[in-house]
């Protein structure tokens, strides 16, 4: 029997697949080698964090927040503790504010390094991967010496941070900052300036500005599509308004720019940490908060700029020790929706590159 023309067939990819960066699953419809449609299927890492929050006290929920975006733990907790502090009208000591910024921005650098590393690994670049992980390890060491944990430090508390940094922290941070320009040059030379990387990524997977806004894309992916928007500038939280930094924006809208903007953001984060390192005052790191937290009745919506996109915390308090509702809006969850839109017409191997450029972490997608 003869089959006329070509037939479309569907292929299951994931949830156990090295290129899906976790437990992401997609059903890919292919015409030959060309992708015609992608259906993302998520929920393999769903732990029901929103439900869990309702049966835990405000303080007990802090460790769970680190597990959302486990590559940049501190920034998730930052959003949560600041939302609760807003609700309770708590003042945070100066030193704690600076330590929070240092940790949050170190987390951002660590997260972006993993993104660049895995992006290069997906196009078979092994060396950039080892360079990025080598340097990320120094950040994780800084987390470990302070809070005891490498990836989920659980360092922030409602009203401050759990403890002051140890003596050896500041010298280690200083030497890391001093080495950073050289590291960035290395990444540029081996990955972004590489001809193979450029030919694989440039003008692949275009996400136009209008589409990005309509799809509610946030974070670095939006900024790589030509929208200069960052919550740290638009609605400064914590003490971000004291620092001098830029919001990088690129207009290429393609996979290369979505990778490259992360490198630019690392440089801006470095600037912030340098200023915080210079200005950090001495003093207490924790304010006096009651043992049993009972925020007054009310609701708050607090936004922070997570490395993966904007994170929103909608906390409703009914005056008891446990929240009535904790809603977590995660950037990566909404950003998944760009995948089916931008892969149409690209080949199977481009799908892997495009997927890497979206910078998803499944802890945040599945909550």
């Amino acid at each position, binding site marked *: 029997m003869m089959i006329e023309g070509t037939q479309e067939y569907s292929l299951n990819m994931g949830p156990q697949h090295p290129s899906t960066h976790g437990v992401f699953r997609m059903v890919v419809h292919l015409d030959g080698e060309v992708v015609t449609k992608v259906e993302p299927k*998520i*929920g393999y890492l*769903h732990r*029901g964090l*929103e*439900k869990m929050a309702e049966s835990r006290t405000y303080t007990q929920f802090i460790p769970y927040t680190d597990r959302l975006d486990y590559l940049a733990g501190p920034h998730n907790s930052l959003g949560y503790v600041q939302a609760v502090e*807003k*609700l309770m009208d708590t003042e945070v000591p100066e030193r704690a504010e600076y330590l929070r910024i240092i940790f949050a921005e170190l987390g951002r650098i660590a997260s972006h390094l993993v993104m660049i590393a895995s992006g290069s690994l997906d196009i078979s670049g092994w060396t950039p991967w080892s360079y990025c992980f080598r340097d990320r390890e120094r950040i994780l060491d800084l987390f470990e010496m302070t809070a005891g944990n490498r990836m989920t430090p659980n360092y922030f508390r409602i009203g401050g941070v759990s403890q002051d940094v140890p003596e050896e922290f500041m010298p280690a941070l200083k030497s890391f900052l001093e080495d950073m320009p050289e590291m960035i040059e290395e990444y540029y030379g081996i990955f972004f300036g590489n001809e193979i990387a450029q030919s694989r990524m440039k003008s692949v997977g275009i996400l136009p500005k209008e589409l990005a*806004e*309509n*799809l*509610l*894309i946030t974070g670095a992916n939006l900024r790589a599509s030509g*929208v200069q*928007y960052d919550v740290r500038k*638009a*609605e400064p939280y914590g003490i971000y308004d004291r620092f001098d930094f830029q919001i990088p924006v690129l207009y290429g809208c393609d996979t290369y720019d979505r990778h490259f903007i992360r490198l630019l953001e690392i440089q801006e984060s470095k600037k912030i940490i340098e200023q915080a390192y210079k200005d950090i005052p001495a003093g207490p790191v924790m304010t006096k908060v009651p043992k049993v937290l009972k925020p007054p009745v*009310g*609701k*708050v*919506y607090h*936004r922070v700029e997570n490395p993966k996109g*904007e994170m*929103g915390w*909608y906390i*409703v308090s009914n005056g008891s020790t446990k929240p009535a*509702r904790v*809603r977590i*809006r995660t950037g990566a*969850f*909404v950003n*998944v*929706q760009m995948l089916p839109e931008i892969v149409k017409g690209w080949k199977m191997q481009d799908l892997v590159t495009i997927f890497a450029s979206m910078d998803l972490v499944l802890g945040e997608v*599945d*909550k």
Partner: protein
Amino acid sequence: MVSDILRVRVSELAARFNGEVEENLGELELTVDGRYILEALTDAKNFADVPCDFLHDLCGMDLGDYLEVVYQLSSLRGPQRLRIIARVERDNPAINSVTQIWKGSDFLEREAFDMFGLQFRGHPNLKRIYMWDDFEGYPMRKDYVIESHEQRAVMRVRKEGE
């Protein structure tokens, strides 16, 4: 901080749809009946001078007697923020989908359906997103009973024809 011009626009909107305006912790909140949500959001998106044109979040909320759908609006071009809350009946939690205004609300609505059983009319693909397809009940509702560990540990029996 809430600007005066946004306050005026929101009170105009509230008067049109018989809504209530509240302000606390520097956030403006408008509560309307679920029937008017599409018109209210379209208007908010096209506010003169202070367009709230970016749907930052959409989520469900269980208040016992009724359910709420909470829309957090912001803008990429200004500092304005607005929260619109739509009330829907508990027995018939149907509300119009906003996917025609923001394509990206697709997943957010699917999640609200999955967790609260909110029926979004006009949604292109209203299926469970986190839980599996034959999961029963809506886990984020307050009356959802969490089964004991022993019950949950029982393996799912394959249905006929699967």
